[in-house]
Each structure stands twice: as C-alpha cells, then as structure tokens.
C-alpha cells in the first residue's frame, strides 16, 4: 500500500486528535478549574487588599497557568501510548517531528487556549492594573505555546512510565524558568511604567526557535523512550 501524502497524514492526525478531545470534552474544563482554584487561593493566603493583590496579579496568573499546563501535559501522549497508536506514529513513513508538531499544536489549542481565554478573568479576580492587562495577555500568548513545546520534549522522555507526575515536574520546571522570568518580567516592567517590549521580543524569539527545534527534539526523545 502506498502511503498518502504528508499533509494528508497531518490533517488526519489533527482531525483524529480533535475528535478525541471533543468526545471527552468534560476533561477540557479541568485545567481551567485548576487555574481558577490556584488563583483563588492567593487572596485567602495574602489578604483581600486590592493594592497588594494588584502587585502580584500578573505573576500569580502566570504561575497558575504554568502549573495548569504542567498538569495537562501528561495527557499529550498517554492515551496514544496506551492504545499503541503512538508506536504507529513513530513507524509511519512521514517525518515524525512534523506529526508531533501537529499533535502539540492540537494539545495547545485544546488545553492552553481556553486557559488563555480565561486569563483576563483571572487577572480581574486579582485586580490586575490597567496597563498590565494587555501585556499579560500578550506575554501569555507568546509563553504558553513555548511551554507546550518545551514540555512536550520532557513528556516524550517519560512516556512509558506509570507514575511520572512528580518526575515530570522535576524535569520540566527548570526548563520553564527563563520563560517565566521574561513573561512575568514584562508584566512587572509594565506595572512599574518601564519599557516592556524587550522581554516580549525575547519570548517571541524563543518561541520561533522552539517551534523549529522542539518537535525535532521531541521526536528524538520519543524514539529513545519507545526503543
């Protein structure tokens, strides 16, 4: 049998992944609930004064989304690994990195994009300052795909394990540090009235680099863990 074209394979993969997510659409709400709960905990811990909350708002929203994304990472390959379709993916004649890029894109669309949409609401809960609101959204729009791409490489390394939750966090979080620093740094600069474009540009540059390199690294990692 002659294999179909690569673009057809990618389209089929995206359609399949979207269908799978749609069939379990209840699960898609979980990261949002998690982020909401994390954000709601901070006023309880720090007190309800709007001034104090305003100062930490951007950072808290950033960390909450980062942790929610970390929890959602596990589902990236788990189902496919358990039903064996991940091995089929590795064996397919099409470039694995491209297929994985499609998978990561779908994963970002279904887990990170909803989070991005509720981020302004989370910011409001913490009385985020007016100039920071849009910077926060912009920083998150650049940072969440970056987090998904970096996370995918680490998930690929832990794919065959049973209880990988804590280990995954240990692998991923050191790699997330620069993203968090630049993303939250841009927001803090905006809050202080300083120029905030430079860190956003750095995030954009990192995103472009990760878009090219992370799928390749993810493919290499997956080949190691499935060998």
């Amino acid at each position, binding site marked *: 049998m002659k294999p179909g074209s690569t673009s057809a394979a990618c389209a089929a993969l995206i359609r399949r992944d979207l269908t799978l997510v749609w069939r379990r659409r209840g699960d898609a709400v979980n990261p949002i609930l998690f982020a909401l709960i994390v954000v709601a905990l901070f006023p309880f811990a720090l007190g309800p004064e709007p001034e104090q909350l305003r100062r930490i708002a951007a950072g808290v929203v950033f960390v909450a989304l980062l942790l929610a994304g970390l929890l959602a990472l596990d589902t990236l390959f788990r189902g496919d690994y358990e039903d064996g379709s991940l091995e089929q993916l590795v064996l397919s004649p099409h470039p694995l990195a491209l297929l994985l890029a499609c998978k990561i894109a779908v994963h970002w669309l279904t887990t990170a994009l909803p989070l991005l949409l509720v981020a302004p609401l989370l910011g409001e809960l913490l009385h985020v300052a007016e100039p920071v609101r849009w910077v926060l959204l912009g920083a998150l729009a650049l940072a969440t795909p970056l987090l998904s791409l970096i996370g995918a490489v680490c998930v690929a*390394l832990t794919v065959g394990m049973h209880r990988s939750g804590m280990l995954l966090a*240990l*692998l991923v979080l*050191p790699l997330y*540090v620069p993203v968090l*620093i630049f993303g939250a740094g841009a927001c803090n600069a905006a809050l202080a009235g300083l120029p905030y474009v430079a860190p956003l540009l750095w995030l954009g540059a990192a995103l472009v680099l990760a878009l090219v390199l992370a799928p390749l690294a993810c493919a290499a990692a997956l080949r190691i*863990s499935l060998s």
Partner: protein
Amino acid sequence: MNALTLWFHKTGSPPTFYRLAGLLLPWCYGIALLLGAIGLYGGLVLAPSDYQQGDAYRIIFIHVPSAWMGLFAYFFMAANAFIALVWRIKLSEVLAMASAPAGAAFTFITLVTGSLWGKPMWGTWWTWDARLTSELVLLFLYLGVMGLYAAIEDRRQAARAAGFLALVGVVNLPIVHFSVNWWNTLHQGSTVRLLGPSHIDAAMLWPLLLMAIATHLWFFGTVLARTRTGLLELDGGKDWVRAIALGPEMSAVAAPAATERTHG
C-alpha cells in the same frame, strides 16, 4: 581501522576499562587527598586574611572549586551523553550517568557554602541573585537527570533518555543564566580570570588552584568508581563479570553453571 580508533575501541571495552579504572582509582584519590591537604594548609594557615572580609573569605577555597566542578561535571556528563547518543558507545552512557551524582554533590556544596558565606557577608542566607539562582537550577537539572535515570527499568534506555535530558539542559543553562542576569545582581564579580589579571593575591591564588586540581581528581575518582559499578551492573551476564563476582575462591563453584550455559 587506524591505530587510534583501535586503541579507542580497546580501552572502551568494558573489561579493559574496568581494569584500567581500577588501576587509576587509588592514584586519583591519593593525589587528590595530597593536593587537597597542601591546598587547605596554604588556604587556611599560610594565606593572609582578607582586608575586607576577614577570615570568612577562606570559604572561597572550597566554594569556588566546587562551583567550577559543578559546571565541569555537567559538561563532562553532556559530552559523554552526546557521544553515547551519536555513536552508541556503552562506556560513554555509563560515564555520563556516573558523573551526575558527583556533579550534584559539588553543586550542593556550592549552594550550602555560598549560603554560609553569604550570611556574614551580605547578612542573608539566600538572595535571588543571578549566580545563586542559576546554581539552583543546575542542581535541579542534575536531580532531573538522576531521577529520570532511576525511573526507567532498562538501564541502557534509562541512560540514553537521561543523557538526552542532559543535552537539553546544556542548551537551557546559558539561557537560564542570561535570564536571571536580567535581575540585578548582588554577587561579587569573578575573582579569578583565566584571561587577563585576576583580582587575587598570589598567596591566596595557589591554594585555590591546588584545591581546583584536587577536586577535579576527586571527581574523576568517584566517576571511575561509579563507572566500574555501572559496568558490572550492565554486563551482569558476561563471563568477565562472573569471574569478578565469584572471586578466585568461588570460581570453582561457578564453573558448572558456566559450562551448563554454553552447552544449553
């Protein structure tokens, strides 16, 4: 095959390297202890106290070599991981995984001694300055590599996965350092520079360099020891390991098992 690659393959074979490491091991430890003793005598007794920091600066003789070793061990590990992944050399896998715990130990020492040095000098145990934070991330990277290596059942696959993570970390490390540099830094600048004049008295410099050599040798000692154990574990079913496991007094007992295997 030319002579060099032939030599490389020969020394790279597990039994040969096991024997070679066994020969080198006592020398590494011995010279490390000797140089360390001289260096510490020079650092703690002979070197004058600092005009600003008094005697507290004497922590430098362990803090700075440990910091160097933490980074050196990471690059040693990553280089071996690269060789292991590209050329699939078994010895490099073992070497890479053997250097992770030693590097983590040095990084841990750096953090603790730095904290103990920071308390009297800066008045605080910890500051979120660029170097401290990078060092902390480095420790987490080590722990991630070790954790991944421990979590996978198959030893060779574990080494390859953890080695891959080490390589990802090499890319990440300068980025982390650059990003945390973005915050203002409290840490004093480099005291010793390889290029150009260094800001340190000769009476303080030579003990520091001796300590650096000593820690390198100690690192190679523990790496060789761990590599020996790793090779034994990896080649558990092979004859050369069986001979070591049973020792000269027990080899007679093992002989039937060995012949049984060749016949079966």
